[in-house]
């Protein structure tokens, strides 16, 4: 798990790809082993149904995380004399020709074993079924990616992506919990299969399970039913392919806001018409309307929720679920660690709009907006999991810990945003799910480090409260937590303001020119962070450039 975390955070595409290949091969072998060692037909059925469903989910999640499917973008072909439909077909077909797709096919062919042990005649069904569900998984993968890439404009698309990222981050943060749940349950699963009940019914309804059902129907002599199942799967494939091509045909579905009357343009609102108020309002609108930012906040919620669910699943980890909301609060720090990078070259406004208080208003406004966006989410997730786990004992600790963490994270977020601005693709040209950020691996560690240090006072009082069990100390903990939060946000924000007071133009330079024009590099921790993040950004940029060149050379050589 930790190795995976490092690999993903480092974002070295070659290393990641190799790791992906190894992981894929291991998973294929695991699928076959599970099929072979299953003691009874019924166990084999439920295990394979479950594993195939996992492959389908993996197919949906995978491309977004690795952006492998996004290497070719439809826009690249706009100038070629090809019809949109032709480009869409070619893009879809290109998806089937990949190592990952090969792994999927190999795994799905594990149903051959099921067929062979039941009735060798049904192997025909197994092969057909595996091919059909292969088309299903790959097309679904492309469809989901297309929905996300082309239609990040829809709220639903953002939430789906949020769930995906939430699962991934939850796996990184709380992998030990999954591992512990898995270790206790997988052997039982492999030997006993799934208990017959709603879960198996749902699993059988998933199209990837239909080939298994067809094989069993064939074994029982009901070839008509078997063929019907395969035909249904084929029909579903056709629908999915059509849907995928349709997305490509009409990629731009403009998301329109509600019609507004001009009278409301500069209207009242509850926020003060001050410089800081202006920034808060602008930021809140960006958080709501910018798909990438909406994705960040949605990911935070789902990371908390997924960890909570994992925790509830294991008996020993259940109490942890009460703190899911705290995860959301902490995620503020990661979601907001690159605010200026997300604004991209729009930061020019902060440079030309400079006055005595502009930097202070900008930083404080961004901090308030972060709190306003994440506090309600942290509260909602907390309440849900307190209710689910009936863990009312945790309330005093949450009342202390959430304000402290939110404040510390809001401070750490603006500080890393200023020091390590990482523009990625400029706002107007963003299309894919990974476009908003460049290389933010160091940012994550800085945020984790800064938050951990600055919430230490609250943590200490919480430990004291837990040990003493005195309600007075619990109240004290809450007070300390709130004060701690304000102090951390104020302190880290203050450092940011002082830094940006002289460096706003450098932030813009990093976005616009990818470097800083300063003869005298800064010393100290801040300077070190600024230079390290810049170097990481440039290294990534160079690596991408090199990869692109290699690809070009390869195509030219053909």
């Amino acid at each position: 798990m930790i190795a995976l975390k490092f690999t993903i955070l480092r974002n070295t595409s070659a290393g990641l790809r190799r790791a992906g290949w190894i992981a894929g091969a291991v998973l294929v072998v695991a699928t076959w082993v599970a099929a072979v060692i299953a003691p009874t037909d019924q166990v084999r059925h439920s295990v394979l149904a479950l594993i195939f469903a996992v492959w389908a989910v993996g197919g949906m999640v995978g491309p977004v995380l690795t952006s492998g499917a996004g290497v070719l973008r439809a826009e690249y072909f706009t100038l070629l004399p090809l019809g949109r439909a032709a480009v869409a077909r070619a893009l879809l077909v290109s998806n089937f020709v990949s190592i990952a797709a090969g792994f999927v096919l190999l795994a799905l062919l594990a149903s051959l074993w099921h067929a062979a042990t039941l009735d060798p005649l049904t192997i025909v069904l197994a092969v057909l079924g595996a091919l059909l569900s292969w088309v299903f998984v790959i097309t679904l993968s492309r469809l989901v990616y297309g929905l996300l890439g082309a239609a990040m404009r829809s709220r639903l698309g953002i939430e789906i992506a949020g769930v995906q990222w939430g699962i991934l981050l939850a796996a990184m943060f709380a992998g030990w919990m999954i591992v512990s749940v898995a270790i206790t349950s997988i052997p039982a699963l492999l030997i006993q299969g799934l208990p017959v009940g709603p879960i198996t019914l749902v699993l059988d309804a998933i199209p990837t399970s239909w080939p298994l059902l067809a094989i069993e129907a064939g074994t029982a002599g009901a070839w008509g039913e078997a063929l019907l199942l395969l035909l249904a799967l084929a029909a579903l494939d056709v629908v999915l392919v059509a849907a995928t091509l349709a997305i490509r045909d009409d990629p731009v579905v403009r998301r329109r806001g509600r019609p507004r009357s001009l009278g409301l343009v500069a209207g009242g609102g509850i926020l003060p018409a001050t410089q800081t108020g202006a920034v808060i309002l602008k930021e809140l609108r960006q958080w709501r309307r910018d798909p990438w930012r909406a994705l960040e906040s949605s990911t935070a919620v789902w990371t908390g929720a997924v960890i909570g669910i994992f925790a509830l699943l294991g008996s020993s980890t259940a109490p942890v679920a009460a703190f899911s909301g705290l995860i959301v609060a902490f995620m503020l720090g990661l979601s907001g660690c690159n605010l200026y990078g997300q604004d991209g070259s729009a930061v020019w406004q902060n440079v030309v709009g400079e006055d005595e208080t502009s930097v202070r208003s900008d930083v404080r406004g961004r901090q308030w907006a972060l709190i306003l966006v994440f506090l309600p989410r942290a509260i909602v997730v907390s309440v849900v999991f307190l209710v689910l786990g009936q863990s009312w004992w945790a309330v005093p600790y949450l009342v202390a810990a959430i304000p402290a963490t939110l404040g510390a994270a809001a401070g750490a977020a603006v500080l890393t945003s200023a020091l390590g601005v990482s523009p990625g693709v400029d706002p107007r040209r963003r299309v894919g799910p990974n476009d908003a950020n460049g290389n933010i691996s160091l940012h994550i560690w800085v945020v984790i480090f800064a938050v951990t240090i600055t919430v230490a006072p609250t943590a200490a009082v919480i430990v004291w409260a837990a040990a003493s069990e005195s309600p007075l100390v619990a109240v004290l903990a809450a007070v300390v937590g709130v004060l701690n939060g304000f102090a951390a946000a104020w302190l880290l924000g203050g450092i940011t303001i002082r830094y940006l007071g002289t460096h706003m133009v450098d932030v813009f330079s990093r976005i616009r020119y990818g470097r800083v024009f300063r003869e005298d590099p800064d010393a100290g921790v801040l300077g070190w962070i600024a230079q390290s993040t810049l170097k990481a950004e440039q290294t990534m940029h160079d690596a991408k450039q090199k990869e692109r060149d290699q690809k070009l050379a390869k195509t030219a050589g053909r």
Partner: protein
Amino acid sequence: MTDDSASTLTGQSPPTSESSGWALELRGLRRLFGDKVAVNDLDLQVPHGSFFGMVGPNGAGKTTALSMAVGLLRPSAGAAFVHGVDVWSDPVEAKRRLGVLPDGLALPERLTGGELLTYWGRFRKLPRDVVAARSRELLRVLELDEAEQLGTLVGEYSTGMRKKIGLATALLHTPRVLVLDEPYEAIDPVSARVLTRILRRFTDGGGSVVISSHVMALVEQLCDRVAIVAEGAVLATGTLDEVRAGASLEDRFVELVGAPEPEETELTWIAG
């Protein structure tokens, strides 16, 4: 070289040490990108109330020079003054007087035009009712009110509309010097007239406008003073008539910048 050409071509007195005589003054501005000299000791003086056009081929350093002039790019050497205030040592005072329209940069893409102006007005500390009145008027005059009613976000604007909303942000806080990078690019003829009318009113009121462009005819038609820039330096500057010296601006430009002679044999196939 720059100094020579400036004084001989313009026939005006060389810049005095009293810099506040100019609305905008660039002194020895220089920017290196690695080994490449993008702007090479560029000097430029923009008088008060003038409509100043900066022309040059693509890659001449116009945008780079203007970026340094308005505080967006740190110069390797030299200085820029707005009404005699040094942009880099007293940025707050200088930026108060400057209105800027950069070329090809993002805006807060997820706001509508009206929301953007409201944000910008309040960010620049204008009173609430002033922001409301000016935003509404700018949207109406620049014909962006319909898009506003539809709730169109800036990110969905066409290039021309982006120019217009960008100009509105540049004008909102009543600057004294406008620096506009390619303001007429992608603007339709009707909007261009509106734009010209606004800018003329601005200069009539004593404000100064600096635009960059590579469309000679446009500059010739609009500007009373021009500077021809190539390879990061000013080749000629002065009033329009001084610079074009009897010829058209385009001929003068080609004469100064140099254009490759077309070969008779090249592209003979193009006519089919």
